[in-house]
C-alpha cells in the first residue's frame, strides 16, 4: 500500500505464527503484513481456517503458547500517529498488559463465552475501567452505566446490575463492546463480532461500531468471513488464504475489481439480487491442513484459473495427484523454481494500492477478467 505513514497506529510486518506440534512448526500465519490507521477500518476476510483469528490473536500475543509461537515478524504499535513504536511481538509482559485492553481492545466472536457468568455486567465493565483508567469505586461504575447507555441499551442502570445470562446475544455483544471502548483504546480488534448474532442485530452492532469509530477516531481491525460486512464497514480489505494475504486493496477497488481467483470465487459465491433460484457458485474443496500445503501456490488445487481448458491447451501443464482425483494444472502455478524464496507467490502491487499474490494475475496485465 502507498507509504502514508502519518496516521499509522498498528503496523504488522511479515508476521509468522507457527504452531509447534510434534515434528517442526506448522505455519498458521505465514508472513502477514498489514497496517491499521487512525479512524480507518481494515477488514481481514477469508474462510474458516485461513488464519485470520490467529493473526488477530498474534497481534496482542494472545495465541495459546504452547502450541502457538510467534516465530518472526514485527507488530509495531504507536499510541498516536508519529509517537514512538513498541514491537508487541517482543515487548515485555508488563508493557503488553497495559496495552491489552487499554490501548488495543479486542472483542470476540462469542459474547456468551467471554462474559464472566458470576459477575454482573456492570462490574465487568467497571473492572476494565479500573484496570486501565485508574478510576476507583463508584466513578468506574458510573462510567460503566454511561457506556451502556451510549451503546443504546435501554435502562442501562438496571442492565448493569444484571448477570450476563439475563441478557440477549445482541445485548451481550454490546456489553463486550462497552467493555472494550470504556478504556478508550486507539485500536479495536473485532474478531467476527457478529457471527453469533442474527442478521438484524448484526447490522445494528456494525452500525454501532461505525458510530463509535466516528466518535473516537480509533482504528478498527475487523476480522470477518462475511464479505457483506467487510464491504459495508471497511476502508481497506485483506483477503487471507492459508495463512497468507492473497489480495489487499481499498474496499471499493477490491469489490469492483477483484483479481485473485480466490477473491473472485468468494464474491461469486455470494447470493445476489436477481440471481434466481439456481445454486450459488462455490469454490470446490477446502483449505488443506496447514501442515501439508501443496507446493507452489497454496490455492492451486482449488483454483479454476489454473485449470481453465483454454489456459491448459496452450501452456505447459502438469498432472497433480490430488486427494480425490488427478487434476491438471499449469506448471507455473506449482513450480517454485526461479520464483520467490519459499516458493509461494508474493504480494505484488498490480495497480495503485492494489496488491495480489498470484503468479497468473501478476504476470498478466491487470484487470483482465
Amino acid at each position, binding site marked *: 500500500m502507498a507509504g502514508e505513514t502519518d496516521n499509522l497506529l498498528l503496523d504488522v510486518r511479515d508476521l509468522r505464527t507457527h504452531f509447534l506440534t510434534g515434528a517442526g512448526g506448522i505455519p498458521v500465519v505465514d508472513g502477514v503484513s498489514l497496517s491499521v490507521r487512525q479512524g480507518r477500518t481494515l477488514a481481514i476476510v477469508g474462510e474458516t481456517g485461513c488464519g485470520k483469528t490467529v493473526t488477530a490473536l498474534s497481534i496482542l500475543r494472545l495465541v495459546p503458547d504452547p502450541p502457538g509461537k510467534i516465530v518472526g515478524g514485527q507488530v509495531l504499535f504507536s499510541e498516536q500517529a508519529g509517537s514512538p513504536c513498541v514491537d508487541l511481538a517482543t515487548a515485555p509482559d508488563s508493557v503488553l498488559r497495559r496495552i491489552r485492553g*487499554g490501548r488495543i481492545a479486542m472483542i470476540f466472536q462469542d459474547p456468551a463465552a467471554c462474559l464472566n457468568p458470576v459477575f454482573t455486567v456492570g462490574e465487568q465493565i467497571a473492572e476494565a475501567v479500573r484496570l486501565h483508567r485508574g478510576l476507583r469505586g463508584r466513578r468506574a461504575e458510573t462510567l460503566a452505566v454511561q457506556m451502556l447507555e451510549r451503546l443504546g441499551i435501554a435502562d442501562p442502570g438496571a442492565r448493569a446490575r444484571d448477570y450476563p445470562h439475563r441478557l440477549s446475544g445482541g445485548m451481550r455483544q454490546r456489553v463486550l463492546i462497552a467493555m472494550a471502548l470504556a478504556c478508550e483504546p486507539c485500536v479495536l480488534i473485532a474478531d467476527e463480532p457478529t457471527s453469533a448474532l442474527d442478521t438484524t442485530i448484526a447490522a445494528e452492532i456494525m452500525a454501532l461500531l461505525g458510530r463509535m469509530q466516528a466518535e473516537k477516531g480509533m482504528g478498527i481491525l475487523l476480522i470477518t468471513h462475511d464479505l457483506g460486512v467487510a464491504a459495508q464497514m471497511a476502508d481497506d480489505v485483506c483477503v487471507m488464504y492459508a495463512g497468507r494475504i492473497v489480495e489487499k486493496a481499498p474496499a471499493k477497488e477490491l469489490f469492483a475489481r477483484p483479481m485473485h481467483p480466490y477473491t473472485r470465487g468468494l464474491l461469486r459465491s455470494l447470493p445476489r439480487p436477481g440471481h434466481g433460484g439456481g445454486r450459488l457458485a462455490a469454490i470446490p474443496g477446502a483449505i488443506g491442513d496447514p501442515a501439508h500445503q501443496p507446493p507452489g501456490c497454496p490455492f492451486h488445487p482449488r483454483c479454476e484459473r489454473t485449470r481453465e481448458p483454454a489456459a491448459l491447451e496452450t501452456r505447459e501443464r502438469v498432472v497433480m495427484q490430488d486427494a480425490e482425483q488427478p487434476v491438471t494444472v499449469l506448471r507455473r502455478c506449482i513450480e517454485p523454481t526461479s520464483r520467490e524464496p519459499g516458493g509461494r507467490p508474493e504480494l505484488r502491487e498490480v495497480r495503485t494500492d492494489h496488491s495480489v499474490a498470484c503468479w497468473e494475475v501478476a504476470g498478466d496485465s491487470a484487470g483482465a477478467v
Partner: protein
Amino acid sequence: MAGAGVLLFLLVVAFLRPVLASRLPVVCRYQGRWHFPGLVETIRTLPLVSYVVGPSRPLGLPSFDVRAAVAESSSVIPALIPYDPLEYSSDVLRPASRSHWLGTDELGRDVAARLVHGTAVSLRVGFGAMGIAAIIGVLLGACAGYVGGWVDAVISRVIEVFLCFPTFFLVLALAVWIEEPGVGQVAILIGLTGWTPIARLTRGEMIRLRDSGLALASRAMGATRRRIIFRHLLPNAMAPVIVTITFGIAHAVLVEAGLSWLGFGVPAPNPSWGVMLRSAYDHMLTAPHLVYPPCVALFVTVLAYNWIGDALRDAADPRANPAWA
C-alpha cells in the same frame, strides 16, 4: 433441605452449648445482683471472641452448686442440662433417667452434656480441617491447572504421592508426632492430608476454563495472571469444588471420631464423640446405653453433610434437574 436443617441444628447446639449443658446457670440472682453467666459464656465461646476477650477468665462468680442454688432460691434459671461435660460424680454407668437424660458414663459424667459439647468439637474439626484443605487444595489446584507445564507436573506428582497413602493411616502416622493434640491440631492434621481431591478437581476445572473464551477475554483485557486465575476463573470453578468440600467435611468428622476412638485424636477427657464411643465400647456389655448417643450423633451428622453435598451437586448440575431436561 433436611441436611441443611440438621446442620443448622448442630450449629445452634454447638454455639449454645453453655446454655444447653453447663453447670453455670443461664440466669441467677446471687448476693443481691443478677448474673447471666450462661449467656456470657455463650458469647465468650463464640468463634474468635475468645481471641478478643482473652483466655478463659473466671466470671467473677464464686463456684457454687447450681443444684443447691436452685433448691434454695427461685431466682435461678439453670441450663437445660445442668452438668458440665467434665463433671464427675459417683453415679457411674447409670441408664437414662429424669436427672440424666442419656445416663452417665463410667466416671459419672452426664452423657447428654458430653454429647452437646462433642457437637462443637465435631463441627470445629469438620470445618477447620476442610477450611485448611480447601485453601491448600484450591490454591495448588488452580495454579497447577492454569499454569500447566512443570508447575502442573510437580503439583500433580505431590498429589499422587499423597493419594498413595490411605488418608486415615497418614493422619495416624502424623498424629504420633504431636504430643498434646488438641481440636485445632487434629483439624490441621486432617486438613493437611485431605486437600488432594479438592486440588485435583480444581486443577481439572481450571484446565477446562484456561482454554475458554473467558480466559482469552480476560487476557485480552490486560489482566495479570493472578487476577485471571483468582478473580475471573476460580469463581467459575468453585461449584463442583464446594460439593467435594461438603463431602470432605463428613469425611473429616469420621476421621476425627476414628482417631479419637483409637486414642490419637482429641485427648480423652474432652467430650469428643469418638472419645465417647471409645469409653462406650469399653463398657458395652454392662452399659449399652452409652453406645447409642455418639453413634446416632455421628450418623446423623455425616448423613446431613452428604445430603447437603448431594443437594449442592444437583443444584450445580443442570442435567440433573428434570424441569430443564
